[in-house]
């Protein structure tokens, strides 16, 4: 509607098989003003995608098996073209970078990087509007 300013909290989705990792990211993202949804598998991820609009998604490249996180990242990019999709991967090889580009992933991080560091790096990429408690405007 013209003139309506819809103000909503920024939404983040974290997809990882490890509950400890999910918890770490949830804490780091919540601290930075994101409402965070976590998913451990593909069905939960797809369900979350039908229920929310995501501004940021962090996906492990390895869910049930190596590499199965890439298509999830690709589908997130297709469903939410403005979403910053990041992937946690075990290595930064040419093939990993190629998978990232071809799935619309904006950045890859080593899987062992602490959640707080990944979130800080993503916020730096997103710029000042992504700061603590900032609001999504449209």
């Amino acid at each position, binding site marked *: 509607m013209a003139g309506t300013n819809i103000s909503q909290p920024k939404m983040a989705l974290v997809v990882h098989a490890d509950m400890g990792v999910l918890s770490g990211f949830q804490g780091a993202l919540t601290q930075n003003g994101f409402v965070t949804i976590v998913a451990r598998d593909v069905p939960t991820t797809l369900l979350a995608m039908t229920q929310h609009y995501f501004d940021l998604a962090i996906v492990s490249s390895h869910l049930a098996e190596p590499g199965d996180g890439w298509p999830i990242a690709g589908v997130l990019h297709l469903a939410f073209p403005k979403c910053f999709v990041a992937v946690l991967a075990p290595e930064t090889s040419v093939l990993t970078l*190629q998978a990232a580009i071809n799935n619309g992933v904006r950045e890859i991080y080593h899987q062992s990087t602490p959640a707080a560091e990944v979130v800080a790096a993503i916020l730096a990429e997103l710029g000042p509007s992504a700061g603590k408690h900032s609001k999504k405007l449209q």
Partner: protein
Amino acid sequence: MPSKPSILIVDDEVNVARTLKMVFEHEGYEATTAFSSAEAIELLSNSHRFDVVMTDLNMEKEDIGLEVARKAMDLVPRPVVVICTGFASTLNARAALKINIDYLATKPADLKELTNALNRLVMLRRASKEGA
């Protein structure tokens, strides 16, 4: 009926560029070739509009195709930007990721996979324009 999609193919290996031109014309594209980054950048600077810009990386000098990709990424409306290279490295692939290009293919490219990917990206771009 939607118009033919247009593609700029940039490769200093004339035979590669011509082969890709034939492949994409067969796919229904209107294909233009440029045999250097300078020629491509001149075309892109002179108001030529393409739905897809596909560039090699190593031409006049190493990784100069990244400049073609950057130039294409700055255009409005932005074309689908593809790098097709036989010399992918973590350095140039990371640079391509940073530019946020749409697709990275390595030579020898699987032509079916490449044409499928480009057709999909063009359709998505057109669908998003129609929905805008």
